[in-house]
């Protein structure tokens, strides 16, 4: 899911490191009881809509400028299926 083509060496090393980290953060489950509400945003705000005024977006050329491969005003992607 992380989409990283790890080498075998990396997998072995990461396994060890991640297990140590996982053990340590497991403690967190003991702290929070069922009666505690979770918080996603530490400073809660009301959602709002910006005024409906047109703005100038990036031009097509600017948007494409950083693309690894572009053609005819589009990004070129590798094929999806084998």
């Amino acid at each position: 899911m992380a989409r990283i083509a790890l080498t075998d060496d990396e997998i072995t090393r990461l396994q060890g490191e991640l297990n140590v980290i996982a053990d340590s953060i497991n403690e967190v489950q003991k702290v929070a009881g069922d009666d505690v509400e979770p918080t996603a945003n530490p400073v809660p705000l009301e959602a709002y809509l910006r005024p409906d005024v047109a703005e100038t977006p990036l031009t097509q050329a600017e948007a494409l400028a950083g693309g690894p491969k572009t053609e005819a005003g589009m990004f070129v992607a590798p094929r999806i299926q084998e």
Partner: protein
Amino acid sequence: MTDATELVKLSAAEMAAKIRNKEVSSRELTEAHLAVIEKAEPTIDAFLKVAADSALAEADAFDAKNAKGETEGLPELAGVPIAIKDMIVTKGIETTAASKILEGWVPPYDATVISKIKAAGMPILGKTNLDEFAQGSSTEHSAFKTTKNPWNTEHVPGGSGGGSASAVGAFEAPIALGTDTGGSIRQPGAFTGTVGVKPTYGGVSRFGAIAMASSLDQIGPVSRTVLDAALLHEVIGGHDKRDSTSIPREVPPVVAAAREGLKMDLKGVKVGLIKELGGEGFQPDVEARFNEAVETLKGMGAEVVEISCPHFPAALGAYYIIMPSEVSSNLARYDGMRYGLRVMPPADVPQTAANMMAYTREAGFGDEVKRRIILGTYALSAGYYDAWYGSAQKVRTLIIEDFKKAFEQVDVLVSPTAPTTAFKFGEKTADPLTMYLGDVATIPANMGGVPAMSIPAGLSDEGLPVGFQFFAPQMQDEKMYKPAAALEAALEGKWGGPVWNDLKTPWLDEA
């Protein structure tokens, strides 16, 4: 010592005053700093990119305006040059987040804070080094170079914003911008004897800050004085409709509070010592400098009490769930499609989009970033989400409650910024967990969304800077600026000058 080296040792506020009095031009200031950068960089390596030509052009544009008297209404720091952490996008200046995956990327737009800095006529000297995607506490995880601590070049400058802190500490820039997700402005501030501020979450727009962990990230000032940080805070702060978490309020009156603090009168100010942030794991000389600073606060009339924040010990573990989870989601955008690196799979592997992403990310990300993406992907996966991410979000609630209860009793909370002084290169890279433990005192502010800052508290037995941290309630950033400015003034009185009087700067002698 030349005029130029005298000039770069001034505070940003003093430089600004000289610009207003026409004693010095923005160009002269910019040239002086570029000269120091040239001499210092072989030793310090704080910058990934020096933008000399555009900085001089910006300085000239400001000077032309100033000559015509068209600078009315600009911020006080108008014309003063600044360095920018390479985690913040700058139109036309390569921005990499110190990652190979973004090497060569020239952003087509400016972050909101950059637009504000440009509008203020402040020349951008260049982009400073960091741990890749701001992930690390030593700047050793940069894909490009290792930044040295100006106090001792065998020691790290802290991280992730080691570049901004070292640049300001070494007089390569008077002020800089950093980003702080778990302490990345404050801990390098502590390690380099500089001032670092993390404003209230949402107090400074994050539009154009490369996203790491969106519920924790905050842009903030790096400087050598508390007043300079306040002046920069007012330039960059305020509401921005491009950031949905931006607080729709005016910037708190931080400059007035800093100036008030310089009077060194803290009668009526209540200070809380956080019981949970000290003792075991804290270096004795760090605690000694901290206690001396607390006595100094008392000497100015502050009332000091001990406060317990019982859930702070759980903050570190919860942070190391929330942060990698958000990292894994935010860094999913580096997929080799629209910008940045693309690496096609080897010939014997099917040449598909999914395989291209996997090989691009394997080649483009460094160890620490991979570690966090994998940890975060795991923490968010079905079956673990509730146990890990859910529990961590609950701990965040408990930490916010700890802060609320504490601030019912005191105006500000204080602690050492970091348990140790700057460590040596390589000392902690082998064991990620020890590296993470160094953030124990800075993480609660990010988890609670409260403002916090680090200022110098003196030197350790080894002659390395120690940081003193203030926390204030959400949206009341000014409350920490007053005691911080007072403490800075009182300690400088005691030492006979700023902490950097003891800093050896051979690169300035040659400049």
